[in-house]
């Protein structure tokens, strides 16, 4: 079917495009303008046309997300399903997640924390998220097998082979490390860990573990750089951890998850534990400008009730007494496990207001939105459904001032947000939410509207109220199929799970099988993610490694 999206303001920063024009689609791809009569013409007059949104860091599947639903059955509200998908109105469910993203014009989403020991459960859950292409990052950095190899001084090749095997076996799209060594250290009694602190038993450090993973990811040719969750998340002085970690990358590609939670300078450096924090957004942004090999996503805070889910069990244990309501789960799992701690970002509270300001500040100070990707670290900073509101605040200084006027004075005293005049353009929003994340994931077929792009396209009615504009797309195409019309799902199209094609080394397979047999009483075959495990056919789509 030939589709012409006609007369909209087409915004594609990767092609320097921002002006009224057409976008043509055929066979699921963006194509050059055609002489033929289109089968469907979409009148996009008065609309903005962008590539579909791409999410790089949102907790949408896996054991900790499951636990969060069990711990807080009342976090979401389910509504009566009028028709269509039986579960799309079930708050927090997989179908609800797919529908909520699609209505905002997002067409790809990545779960950043898949434990290789539970890859099958995570992949089964992801496969039940309709409308989107999905993917997951394999988490490494705390597992005994890896730490043993490092402790024993095994070769870089051995580390590479083990990482490749984990990616292949779990069918991941990339690799993440979460407070590398922190979960292991926590199980051995440690309650605070910085980059060069010793991990008990193994004599390693976060620097050493992360460095080995940075190398392995490059050697394998994983398109997405190592996705790093640093030490000391959320603590005053965490900006030091961020900058030290960036320096420890020594020029290698690195992605920083939810940077907002590290942009906390100790307000009283002599007493970091008691003096609270002030914005370190400027420091973080300067460090990023000086290190073009690095990227970050924000982890913007949203006021209101949420639940934090993280495999950083050391940090979640440390934060357990701030649980609101006062209940929490900590699973000391087979490598990382997970911590699930409910949290209320108090509306107009001093701490949450400063956190809110810092996230916006990082985005507004950044010269390069493509390396400054919008996330809320859903649900940790707040729900991803807040993106339209966040975009509104970035694009509209007056709107920002109205919100700041309701907040305590600490926002003025400890952040520079109120002084920032900048307003994001549509092109910059596209960089922040489309081209940036797609490039980061190494998915060249999306995040833009050039010929040959996957026809994942969002059409928004131009509206000064950017919240309304981005909350409910006029039209969303996924693979060239109209899935959303006037903000409602019209076709329960099923996307694919993006999975990296990696050859695993046979010798490492045998070695790992023996290791797993010894530790679990079960071998590698109990950890695999075979096609036959999936109720529906054709779940996965291959993504190639870098040449």
């Amino acid at each position, binding site marked *: 079917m030939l589709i012409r999206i006609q007369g909209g303001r087409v915004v594609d920063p990767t092609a320097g495009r921002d002006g009224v024009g057409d976008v043509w689609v055929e066979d699921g791809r963006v194509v050059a303008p055609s002489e033929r009569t289109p089968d469907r013409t979409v009148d996009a007059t008065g609309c903005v046309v962008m590539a579909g949104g791409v999410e790089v860091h949102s907790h949408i599947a896996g054991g900790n997300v499951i636990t969060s639903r069990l711990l807080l059955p009342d976090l979401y509200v389910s509504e009566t399903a009028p028709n269509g998908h039986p579960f799309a109105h079930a708050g927090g469910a997989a179908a609800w997640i797919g529908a909520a993203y699609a209505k905002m014009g997002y067409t790809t989403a990545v779960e950043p924390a898949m434990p290789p020991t539970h890859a099958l459960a995570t992949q089964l859950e992801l496969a039940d998220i309709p409308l989107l292409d999905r993917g997951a990052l394999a988490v490494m950095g705390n597992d005994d097998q890896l730490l043993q190899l490092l402790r024993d001084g095994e070769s870089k090749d051995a580390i590479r082979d083990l990482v490749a095997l984990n990616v292949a076996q779990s069918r991941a799209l990339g690799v993440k490390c979460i407070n590398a060594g922190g979960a292991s250290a926590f199980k051995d009694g440690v309650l605070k860990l910085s980059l060069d602190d010793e991990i008990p*038993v193994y004599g390693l450090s976060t620097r050493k573990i992360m460095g080995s993973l940075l190398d392995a990811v490059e050697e394998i040719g994983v398109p997405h750089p190592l996705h790093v969750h640093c030490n000391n998340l959320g603590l005053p002085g965490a900006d030091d951890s961020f900058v030290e970690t960036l320096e420890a990358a020594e020029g290698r590609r690195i992605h920083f998850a939810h940077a907002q939670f590290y942009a906390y300078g100790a307000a009283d450096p002599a007493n970091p534990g008691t003096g609270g924090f002030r914005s370190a957004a400027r420091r973080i942004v300067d460090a990023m400008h000086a290190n073009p090999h690095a990227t970050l996503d924000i982890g913007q805070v949203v006021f209101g009730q949420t639940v934090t889910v993280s495999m950083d069990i050391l940090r979640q244990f440390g934060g357990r007494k701030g649980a609101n309501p006062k209940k929490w789960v900590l699973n000391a799992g087979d490598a990382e496990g997970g911590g699930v701690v409910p949290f209320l970002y108090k509306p107009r509270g001093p701490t949450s207001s400063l956190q809110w300001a810092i996230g916006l500040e990082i985005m507004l100070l950044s010269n390069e939105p493509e390396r400054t990707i919008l996330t809320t670290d859903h649900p940790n900073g707040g729900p991803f459904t807040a993106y339209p509101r966040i975009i509104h605040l970035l694009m509209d200084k007056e709107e920002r001032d109205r919100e700041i006027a309701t907040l305590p004075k600490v926002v003025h005293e400890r952040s520079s947000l109120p002084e920032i005049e900048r307003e994001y353009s549509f092109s910059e929003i596209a960089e922040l939410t489309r081209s940036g994340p797609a490039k980061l994931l190494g998915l060249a077929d999306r995040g833009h509207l050039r010929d040959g792009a996957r026809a994942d396209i969002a059409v928004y009615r131009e509206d000064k109220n950017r919240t309304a504009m981005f909350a409910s797309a006029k039209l969303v195409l996924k693979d060239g199929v109209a899935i959303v019309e006037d903000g409602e799902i019209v076709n329960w199209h099923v996307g694919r799970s993006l999975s990296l094609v990696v050859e695993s080394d046979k010798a490492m397979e045998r070695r790992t099988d023996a290791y797993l047999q010894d530790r679990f009483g079960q071998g590698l075959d109990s950890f695999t993610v075979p096609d036959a495990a999936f109720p529906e056919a054709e779940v996965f789509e291959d993504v190639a490694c870098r040449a």
Partner: protein
Amino acid sequence: MTAWVKGDATDAEGAIAAAAALLAAAHAPVFAGLNADVAAIRAAYRLAGTIGASLDTQGAAGTYADLGALARVGAMTTTPAEARGRADVALVVGAKPEASALVAALRGGKPVRGRAAGADRQVLSVGGASAETLPSDLALLRAYAKGHLKDESPLNGIARALYAAQYGVVLYDPAELGELGVEMLQGLVRDVNEVTRCFALSLGDSDQDRAVVQVSAWTTGQAPRTGFGRKVPEHDPWRFDAVRQVSAGEADAALWLSSLPAARPDWLGALPSIAIVGEGSPEAVPGTAEIVIAVGVPGASAGGVLWNEGRAALTYRPGAGGGPSAADVLARIEHHIAGKDS
């Protein structure tokens, strides 16, 4: 395919059409058992969502003891492999866990990972003598651990051992302990963590409830028991208890899904019912229900994803050569009711 309708052998199509007719005529059908692979559980949720049925599970007593305590006070947990690998102190709570392979393995081994590696392992027990005094024994133990009681009782020795441990694990059977007992146990574990590491480990039955909990959570956003009677998934452990619904006369049809071995519930004969059971099982006989459909047994005569108790994870188990999968039968019933095929 082996199937019977009202005692008479029939083919797949006949049984599926009869099952669809039975469910379509019902106002408040209940699905029970759900002792099957993930694809079948998922198909059962889809069918229930379509027709407004409610769902209950095989191992509900234990599942709700854990889930109820979890939703009220949270939990601190570990895994079987971590318990075997790291624990220098294991506390067995109640009598039931004594029968588990894990407790036997703990008694026969030492920690090999982490800071306790190479140390001797102490395996202690509390409350195994009497189900009646189990809750109070546990409460007393927590009181000693908190320092509220201080005399030299054996319980005080156990409390001290937990504090002295480098990695303690507290094992229990949630069905034996009950919801309040689990809550007390999690409180004890939390208290000990003010000083050292200590984690709980729930040893359930071998049915597929843990798989159901996951599928239910990602499918509906909520734990099971779930009802779809109002076209919206509602989680209500009391209302959607299948036994209660049947005995109260609220349910007017039942579908029992058990492609893995389980005893037939005795209430199944009390109302119009469908049984989807594993081929070759004692339940795969005409008298089990009004409509009986025998299906492949996951992990044996059919492939399927099952809860893997040894690893506390979902695992694909291959299998071949059997009848249709339970998921396929359920999907065909759903299509039949929706009029998508004949």
